[in-house]
């Protein structure tokens, strides 16, 4: 990745639009480029257009407008089988009438590869997913996780430079999902392949990706590495969609030195970092992560604004405590505190005071 040539865009969407019925756009003006070797996740609620983008890249849907380029070449008119893109499907799509080895052999056979070369590649691909012993089995004789491994091996066996994955872990249980998440990332990085991964599971997106594209309403709402996405959401949709989040509505009073004073609808004043607001008088929705809310006044700036809060519920979750508060007329304000020896366990009805660092509270679009 240090090499400047590989930094150049490998997959590129330019002003891509897609409509199925000629009336509404499923994908609106999509621009995206990813360099070789990157693991990019398309994250979004269902109906946000992420799968459509993947299908357009694979060639199963054609873009209504715009250009999709692979390694600098426009692929709009190249049929799927000539694109050389590996793909892993949500339901695995392993051919049930073929054994595991035959499934893996299929892409090699259609490429007219010799028998010995095929066998070598199949065994190597099965080795990558630790499934060498299952070559003679039928897909129906395998568990879900094993099937997914085979589907992965099949998408990799013909050594594509780009692999697409359409919610590949959706049907698996949590523990298996976590193991496979790790395996997929490791494989992708080891082989240096470019991966486009579609999911609606934000944990998956955050743990696996180099960058995440958050989709909503046919647009990319934010394209950023996982940490930036979590800590610096660009708009309230991203802030809501990624992780747990508290929101408060209000109006900007003034902006000074990168700190905005926001008057909440209840009348209280708070500090926030202006993101999508530029001048006083604009309505805004401020967003703050539950773990960034501070109850200990000593740790805040002396001139920081604080809010009065009433404890409504206290939930013990082992490693953390989750407390629900009533703040500025909102009943679902959550704070999370580490289970540390000196951490107080709050009781319902208790009155406390909370505050935060201005840079942790983001004033976003209303």
């Amino acid at each position, binding site marked *: 990745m240090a090499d400047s040539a590989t930094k150049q865009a490998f997959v590129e969407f330019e002003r891509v639009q897609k409509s199925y019925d000629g009336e509404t756009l499923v994908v609106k003006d999509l621009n995206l480029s990813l360099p070789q070797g990157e693991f990019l996740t398309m994250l979004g609620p269902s109906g946000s257009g992420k799968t459509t983008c993947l299908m357009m890249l694979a060639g199963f849907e054609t873009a209504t407008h715009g250009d999709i380029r692979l390694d600098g070449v426009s692929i709009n008119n190249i049929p799927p089988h000539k*694109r050389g893109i590996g793909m892993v499907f949500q339901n695995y799509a*392993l051919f049930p009438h073929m054994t595991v080895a035959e499934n893996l052999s*299929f892409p090699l056979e*259609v490429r007219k590869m010799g028998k010995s070369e095929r066998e070598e590649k199949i065994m190597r691909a099965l080795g990558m997913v630790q499934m060498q012993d299952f070559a003679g089995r039928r897909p129906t004789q395998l568990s879900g996780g094993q099937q997914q491994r085979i589907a992965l091996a099949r*998408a990799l066996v013909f050594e594509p430079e780009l692999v697409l994955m359409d919610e590949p872990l959706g049907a698996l249980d949590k523990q298996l999902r976590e193991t496979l998440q790790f395996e997929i990332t490791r494989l992708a990085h080891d082989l240096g392949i470019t991966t486009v991964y579609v999911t609606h599971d934000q944990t998956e997106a955050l743990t696996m990706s180099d960058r995440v594209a958050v989709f909503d309403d046919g647009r990319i709402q934010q394209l950023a590495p996982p940490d930036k996405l979590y800590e610096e959401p660009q708009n309230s949709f991203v802030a809501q969609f990624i992780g747990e989040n508290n929101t408060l509505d209000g109006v900007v009073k003034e902006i000074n030195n990168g700190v905005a004073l926001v008057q909440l609808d209840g009348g209280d004043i708070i500090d926030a970092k202006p993101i999508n607001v530029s001048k006083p008088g604009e309505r805004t929705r401020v967003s703050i992560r539950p773990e960034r809310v501070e109850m200990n006044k000593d740790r805040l700036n002396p001139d920081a604004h604080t809010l009065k809060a009433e404890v409504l519920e206290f939930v013990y979750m082992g490693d953390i405590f989750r407390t629900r508060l009533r703040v500025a007329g909102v009943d679902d304000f959550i704070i999370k505190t580490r289970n540390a020896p000196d951490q107080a366990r709050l009781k319902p009805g208790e009155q406390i005071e909370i505050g935060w660092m201005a840079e942790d509270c983001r004033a976003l679009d209303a």
Partner: protein
Amino acid sequence: MADTAANGPVLAADGSPLKRSLGRALRRQKLRALALVAPLLIFVLITFIFPIASMLFRSVQNDIVSNTLPYTVQALANWDASTGDLPPEQVFEAMYFDMFLAAEAKRHTRLGTRLNYEQTGVSSLFRQSGRKLDDLGKDIEKPMNRLNAAWKDGETWYSIFDAGTDSADTQLLQVQRNRVAALTDGPASGDVNFAPSAAMAQALPTATRAYTAWAVYTATQDGKDPATTDPWEALPVALVHDLKTADLSGLNGPAVDLLTELQAANIEMPTFAGFFADMDEDWATATPWQTIQTHSGIYTSGYFLNAVDAQKTPEGIAWQPEDKQILLTLFVRTLIMSLAITGSCILLGYPIAWLLANLPMRQANVLLILVLLPFWTSLLVRTSAWKVMLQQQGVINDVLVWIGLVDDAERLIMINNQFGTIVAMTHILLPFMILPMYSVMQTIPPSYLRAAKSLGATNWTAFWRVYFPQSVPGIGAGSILVFILAIGYYITPEIVGGTKGVFISNRIAYHISSSLNWGLAAALGSILLAAVLILYWAYDRIVGIDNVKLG
């Protein structure tokens, strides 16, 4: 607890063997399941299995010969038919009395019809001879009555043969009861007001037997009292025949004088063989006797042999004469045409089923209704429509002539031949192919094709290597359905098939309703059923019935 398994059978909590406890627990469930299916089971048994079984049984049933001609069959048993000589006189004698009783019961023509299936001409021989049997009796009655007017009187005969207070031959009576019952397909029980005298049965066996048979028939079938009824013409024949050799010395009673007088008169009568030859010269050849002997068994393979163009002869099994060999050809034709229909249904139905499975729901539903539309139209209407379409002055020919593709003088012959049958039946059976294919294709997710293409397969390779193998169970199910329906199809080939395009089922229908040769029809049906079962079995071995899916 668990270690009991090692020492013996596992026990339930109450100490009884676990297996028995389980059986008891399951029995209730089984009984309930049985009760649920019982109405249908009984319905099917009564309306389907039992009639078919009894119908198919007719293909081997042959007791009509031994029921109608019991004594002839007995007498023929020792005759060597292969020499070509005529059978001995006893056979003719037995035949005369068997035939006389059968003619009175009007059963001889039925037997004639049965034997006519095996030997042409037997039917008319039986029918004509049945009318002439009386002649012999009349020739003998006249001199008897002249000798003594008492012979005209039924009571005289009764007094001679009835046991009265003497010992009676009850066994003979029972045998004759059974004989009449078998002949008339009905019971011959009840009071006959007659018991054959044992002494007479000894001295005059033929006459006593004939009289007993007559008495049983008269009493049970005609409802008359044998004591006051005049006997048939066969009885004088039997009596005079017996008296030629009878020894009357052991007899006593009033009848002895009459009999002695008659014996002394020594009325002239021809041999039975001579009389039969006189009735019809065919009786003087070995042929009808060979036919009767060959087919005298209670069960016969004759119908089955006929069904495959063979027949039973005294020398063994032989092919029918070439001009009568049609059934094997018809079987082969039925098989080949059914395969052709199945094949064309696959070719025409597969694309439609694919389209149905891949179109959006709304359009698929409309198309499905179009596929099902033929089911809402009468089969007869659809077939007749094909007649309108395909005939030489029909729509298709008219159009072809109109656009100049076909000369008016050379209109295509598309009906009353195999082409017409295949076209019409393909149309009619197509839905049975499409529906199972559709329901199987519906279960194949489109992602398989996508996966194949993403792996580098062209559209054709993806279809042929990935989609098609998975749709084979649907083809299999459709093929079985269409083939089995086609092989037994009747109406369509009957209407559009002419002579060249008919199926074996049309022949079966002909034998059921026109020629009334139910035995042959049953044999043909059994062979058809067996053929279907064998093909089904072969299909199971080759394709595997587990691979057949109806949805």
